[in-house]
């Protein structure tokens, strides 16, 4: 096997980010909890592992820097350095410098400016070089190779020893299953022999794992036994105390290649290049389309045996598709986890007190969506702290607790994921926004109040509040237009609810996955269009009773509600006469609803969203296109954009 350095670079990047994320998370805990040995230990381990990874990759300047940080931490751990706010700031600065250094790092890179500055701060705090008593071990070749602690089972948690029965069939699979079962109880910090080795095992195994869990030994044993073919389970809680005496061993391994050191780390997941998942997604998309064609063909032939086989293949394809979609899903904490740090920094900067909570960490979202959503969320969180949450003094005056409450939450809602940023601040000053909107000609002079949706539309105007010079204006325009633009390109939408004096909630509604969406196929004349279901509320027959004329315009009367009617035929500028029997799709975006008249509803279908090069002119109504069962392309109507003109 040839080693492709770029693959390791990618692995390094992902794993080193995880270590930095752990470092940040535990630094926050440390800051909040004072002398928290657990958190301190975790920070130390994260930096230590990070250092080892950098050294393995040959990134010496970064490794050296990490080493300095580690040395300082070690002194703190041994009680030689007291916890001070300056120390915490220096450590946070160091974490930032390390993160910055990861960008474009190479074997020959030197220290970045941020690293030099952070190092200076560390030295200031430590009172002289922190490293004096902790010399780095170096090879003639310059490589500082580190082997993680000799026994991976040393550390916090309980040690679970599992022995498989002698007659175990597929011992590798069973062992793997046992580890998977253990994960349902908590974090599996280490497995020995390694998980990869276990999975390959062909002989019955005796293995051990270190499990971070609050469950009792009986529960652990019972859970692991469900993996099957388990002869014996032993739960040892004494491992926890051994941690104190754990020594950090730095070993120089001559001529060791980079690969084993990286691979030896206990991996909990198999990492797959996102591009490969994209390819899989495209392939399954093609397969789904082909299935549609095959089903049509086999229905035409009418052979029951063929139908049977087709049904089975069809079900398998559906299962495969959902598996592939699932494999692309990642929990939102992967992005949310960096926000506590951001909130802390921003609160300090703004002189505000903020209690930050994250809810729904485990809600999953398509990887590609999650990657894109971080930036908009940063905007929203900053806005909430900058414009929403008041200063502690102002809050006390208003009869609120000194610290503002900021909640970032994720929740599933049918085929959508809702991500909310809610604060209990002062809310948007509607009167000011209205005055500004009138001055800017955004709303009619006769308007006396703005509802939430109008409010959002006003402040999402590019430059709406940046142009506003009045101080104390609680506009949330900073970046709201950017947030809205970004979210729209992801097929989602932004909603806002603001109550003066009580706070503001911004909601981002996103489809769970980008590539395959459930859509309603509609026909108008000879053309077919796909309407994404996110915006479809219900469908109904075009009846005389429901459709009435108000001031010369057709409207839809639906349960005492009068909705404007749009005709898809007009929307897509189709020539010819409408058909006699037609149907109505009730579409909604936020609070707004509307009826869309089509000639025929063909049905619901999972469609694969494809991008295409749009012509220069042409309606900006489409969020992509899909290929129908007969192979013809159909445009996907972005229902949200239909509300713009009405």
């Amino acid at each position: 096997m040839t080693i492709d350095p770029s693959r390791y670079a990618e692995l390094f990047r992902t794993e080193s980010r995880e270590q930095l994320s752990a470092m940040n998370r535990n630094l926050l805990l440390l800051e909040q909890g004072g002398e928290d040995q657990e958190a301190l230990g975790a920070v130390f381990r994260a930096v230590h592992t990070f250092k080892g990874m950098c050294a393995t990759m040959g990134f010496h300047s970064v490794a050296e820097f990490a080493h300095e940080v580690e040395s300082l931490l070690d002194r703190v751990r041994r009680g030689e350095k007291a916890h001070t706010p300056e120390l915490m700031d220096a450590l946070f600065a160091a974490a930032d410098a390390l993160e910055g250094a990861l960008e474009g790092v190479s074997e020959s890179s030197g220290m970045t400016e941020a690293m030099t500055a952070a190092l200076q701060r560390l030295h200031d705090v430590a009172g002289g070089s922190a490293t004096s008593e902790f010399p780095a071990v170096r090879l003639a070749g310059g490589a500082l190779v580190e082997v993680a602690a000799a026994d991976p089972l040393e550390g916090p948690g309980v040690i679970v020893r599992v022995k498989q029965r002698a007659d175990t069939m597929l011992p590798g699979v069973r062992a793997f299953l046992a580890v998977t079962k253990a994960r349902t109880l908590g974090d599996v910090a280490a497995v020995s022999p390694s998980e990869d080795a276990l999975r390959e095992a062909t002989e019955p195994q005796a293995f051990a794992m270190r499990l971070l869990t609050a469950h009792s030994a009986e529960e652990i044993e019972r859970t692991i036994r469900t993996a099957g073919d388990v002869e014996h389970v032993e739960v040892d809680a004494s491992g926890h105390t051994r941690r104190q005496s754990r020594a950090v061993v730095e070993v120089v391994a001559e001529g060791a290649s980079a690969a084993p050191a990286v691979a030896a780390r206990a991996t909990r997941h198999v990492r797959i290049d996102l591009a490969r998942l994209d390819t899989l997604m495209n392939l399954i998309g093609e397969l789904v389309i082909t299935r549609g064609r095959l089903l049509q063909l086999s229905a035409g032939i009418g052979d029951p045996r063929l139908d049977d086989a087709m049904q089975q293949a069809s079900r398998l394809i559906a299962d495969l598709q959902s598996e592939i979609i699932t494999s692309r899903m990642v929990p939102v904490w992967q992005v949310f986890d960096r926000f506590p740090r951001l909130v802390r920094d921003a609160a300090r900067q703004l002189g505000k007190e903020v209690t930050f909570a994250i809810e729904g960490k485990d809600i999953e979202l398509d990887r590609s969506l999650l990657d894109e959503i971080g930036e908009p969320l940063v905007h929203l969180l900053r806005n909430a702290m900058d414009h929403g949450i008041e200063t502690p003094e102002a809050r006390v005056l208003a009869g609120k607790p000194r610290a503002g409450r900021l909640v970032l939450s994720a929740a599933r809602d049918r085929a959508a994921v809702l991500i909310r940023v809610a604060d209990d601040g002062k809310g948007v000053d509607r009167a000011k926004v209205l005055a500004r909107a009138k001055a800017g000609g955004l709303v009619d002079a006769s308007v006396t109040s703005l509802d939430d949706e109008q409010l959002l539309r006003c402040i999402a105007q590019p430059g709406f509040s940046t142009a506003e010079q009045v101080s104390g204006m609680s506009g949330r325009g900073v970046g709201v237009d950017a947030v809205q633009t970004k979210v729209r390109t992801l097929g989602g939408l932004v909603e806002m609810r603001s109550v003066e004096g009580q706070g503001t909630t911004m909601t981002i509604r996103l489809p769970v996955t980008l590539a395959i969406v459930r859509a309603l196929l509609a026909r108008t004349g000879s053309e077919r269009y796909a309407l994404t279901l996110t915006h479809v509320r219900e469908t109904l027959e075009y009846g005389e009773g429901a459709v009435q004329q108000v001031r010369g315009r057709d409207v839809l009367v639906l349960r005492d509600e009068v909705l404007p009617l749009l005709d898809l035929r007009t929307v897509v500028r189709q020539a010819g006469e409408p058909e006699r029997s037609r149907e109505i799709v009730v579409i909604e975006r936020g609070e707004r609803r509307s009826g869309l008249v089509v000639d025929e509803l063909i049905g619901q279908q999972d469609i694969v969203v494809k991008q295409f090069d749009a012509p220069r002119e042409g309606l900006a109504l489409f969020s992509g296109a899909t290929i129908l069962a007969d192979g013809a392309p159909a445009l996907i109507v972005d229902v949200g954009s239909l509300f713009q003109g009405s």
Partner: protein
Amino acid sequence: MLLFRAAGRLCACELDAVREIVAARPATRLPGAPAWIDGLVNVRGTLLTVVDLAVRFGAARAEGSAGSIVIVSGAGKVFGLRVDGVRDVRTLGGDALEPVDAQRDAGGVVKALAHVGAAGDESALVCDIEAIAREALAVQDGTTTHG
């Protein structure tokens, strides 16, 4: 150069720009686009915008699915040219090429006039693929590209 017919005329384009030639197929109309944009077609799972060269040169739209689509790349985009049929591949250049006069240039998309045939009895309009790409697709700014 690839020689083909569109709107009854002999046309040509650089062979380097040609990716593939496929049979014409019904295109999905792109609402709001000019008439000379034939629409969107599916070529083995990839969606391509097709320019109807005949309509672009002022002739009537070819009905049905006769003819071919020449898939070309220019200005960083891949798109299709709907043509009546592909004729030949020839080396044209030097003396055979003649600057096109303004009257025969259909709005900047014809680069040159090429003399084809033994006695130069026929001339072909050499299409400027880059210019067609720029004219038809949102090339300069990527923002209108769906994605």
